[in-house]
């Protein structure tokens, strides 16, 4: 490392690559093997007609799988469900996370303990959270309906109208802490000067929040929402553990649909095609948002 470059490059076998590439190589090999290869492979089979139960069928069919997906009303329904889920969950998480972060920031004592306690839902594996809520909210066995019953309220959390909302609230329960963590870090890094100036000018706390804190926080909020939204899009465990997409198709989400098509119905090519439509969509959204936010910073 020390003299490699300055001494004019002592060449030895297989070290013809620049130093930084040599250091990256092991990681690159692993990434290609476990990430790029399967990804490209799934892209490749999305243009073929591979089905597990038809071992002799493996032809190139062009865009047939994509056309099938496009014409499948079930696909549009799962898209709708997934976006509904993401919007409900992430907006709720953002509001709650912001409120909690502001409270925590102003807290004088026991702040770290409180923060640690608030973070615990994040550390439970989602499938366990799914099962937990399946029983907590069950009309037959659940604690929550039993308590509500005491007040004469009767809600079926997994009815056709409520199920998707209930699932998104489970997501809120588990992932608001993540939002809190991101926003709190953002809040703690805000400069003090604008606040002092505002206070000197006699601004009220609501004014400070809407005119200073939120505008200053917007880059952090965008990133936090983005991460959460992409994460929420892959919701699978709650659906699998609780509703299996029902009642009807009310809670069928993208990942569950991919799973069902690929493993349930053995149709690997169609499942790959569905998955790739998601990749393409996510890429477009990401590029747009990142492009906008970098442009905003340059101004």
């Amino acid at each position, binding site marked *: 490392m020390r003299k490699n470059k300055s001494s004019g490059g002592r060449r030895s076998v297989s070290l013809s690559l620049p130093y930084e590439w040599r250091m990256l190589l092991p990681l690159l090999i692993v990434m290609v093997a476990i990430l790029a290869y399967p990804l490209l492979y799934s892209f490749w089979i999305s243009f073929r007609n591979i089905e597990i139960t038809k071992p002799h069928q493996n032809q190139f069919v062009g865009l047939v799988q994509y056309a099938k997906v496009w014409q499948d009303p079930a696909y549009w329904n799962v898209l709708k469900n997934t976006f509904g889920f993401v919007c409900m969950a992430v907006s709720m998480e953002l509001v709650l996370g912001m409120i909690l972060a502001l409270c925590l920031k102003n807290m004088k004592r026991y702040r770290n303990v409180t923060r640690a306690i608030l973070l615990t839902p994040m550390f439970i594996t989602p499938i366990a959270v799914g099962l937990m809520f399946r029983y907590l909210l069950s009309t*037959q066995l659940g604690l929550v309906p039993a308590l509500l019953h005491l007040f004469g309220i009767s809600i079926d959390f997994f009815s056709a109208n409520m199920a998707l909302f209930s699932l998104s609230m489970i997501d809120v329960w588990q992932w608001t802490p993540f939002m809190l963590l991101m926003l709190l870090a953002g809040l703690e890094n805000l400069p003090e000067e604008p606040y002092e100036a505002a206070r000197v000018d006699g601004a009220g706390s609501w004014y400070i929040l809407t005119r200073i804190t939120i505008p200053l926080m917007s880059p952090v909020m965008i990133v936090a929402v983005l991460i959460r939204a992409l994460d929420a899009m892959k919701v699978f465990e709650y659906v699998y553990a609780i*509703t299996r*997409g*029902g009642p009807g198709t009310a809670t069928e989400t993208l990942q569950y649909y*991919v799973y069902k098509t690929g493993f349930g119905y053995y149709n690997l090519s169609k499942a*790959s095609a569905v998955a790739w439509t*998601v990749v393409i969509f996510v890429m477009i959204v990401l590029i747009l948002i990142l492009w906008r936010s970098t442009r905003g910073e340059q101004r």
Partner: protein
Amino acid sequence: MMKSGFARMTGVVSVAAVLLSGCTGAGGNEKQGASAGNAGQKVTLKAIMEQVPDSDIVKKMVADFNKENPNIDVNIEMLPYDQIRDKIVTSFLAPSATYDLIVVDNPWMNDFASAGYLEPLEERVKAAGADYNYQDFSAPLRGIGEVNGHTYGIPFYNYALGLIYRKDLFEKQGLKPPSTLAELRQDAKLLTTGDQAGLAMQPQRGYKIFEEWANWLYAAGGAIQDNAGKITLNSPQAREALTQYIQTYKESAPKDSLNWGFDEALRAVSGGKAAMMLSYNWMLPALNDKGGQAGDLAGKFGLAEVPGGKSVLGAWYWSIPANTKNKEQVWSFIKWITSPQHEKQRVIAGGAPVRNSAMDDSEVQQKGFGVEYYKTVKAILKNAAPLGNSLNAEEMVQTVGTELSQAVSGQKSVDQAIADADKEAKDIINAKK
């Protein structure tokens, strides 16, 4: 994570593809000489089974099998239903089988057999001779295991549906088990009082609702497929059956039970919260078991044929994967466990019967659950049909089950749901031919 989802999927896929190209054509033609040469050595067979009481009974019988066959060890791995199919399919695609002995659920049979993943068994059945008496298996059960003229599965246990009802409540009202849909609906309504529901239904989307509703369909005189295999769901009978089903759900099912499946219905009935349910016939002995789930209610349950007399048939099968090396040893075990003699032993221990001789046997009746029970089960099995027995039955069942669920939860009208179910089922079946 989304990427890791892909990785997971494509992982299986890449395994699949390597194999698909590798074993094309080699499917069912293992050389038998190889396994015969091993006959003297000790062989361990890896078996996969569902975590159910019937598997426990088989597991206990392995010791007896080993007394007669000291050279064959059977190592049974038990898994929940959700996991076994994925494991079995992965084992089919592997260069050498992970599992030598598998159990196959009836909707998978045609797909697995047509893909060449299962070993045809008819020659071995023939060689087993008159003592083995293959014709003794209840005819509808044999039908499922036979695909395109070959036998791929030997019946293991049945899960045909029957009507389980509370005898005491029926007597109190002076009722007899309902024999038509109208009677069922009427009785259910009559027995709905306070926090007791007349009928614990299972409208959970997918297999469950279809499995339950198809009994309504049969009772209304409809059918899922005609003799030529053509889907015949778009019929007045189907619309009538679904209308009745929804009415009964609204009038007499427990409140908020749209997502209920087997567990929830059983819990309601065993806890005295429902007077009837359509469920697997072998739930009766479990419910009547003193010290079992039903507590003080044990002994108060009765079993009848479903209204209309034709019920939905489900069954598990023993099969040999085409890619195992130990076919002869696996067959020795299958032949042993399904022989008339050991079927008797299995049924006495509480297993669900598949052979008529076992259900007629006085020793079985005496040591088992009584004459009445086996007579009813035999009658149920005699007139029963599976939900789907064609290629891609699993997808057809799930799709129809989703449409039905949409109708019950009010997302679609009855006419719409039936028309859509018919169209989608046709597309699924035809696309695969």
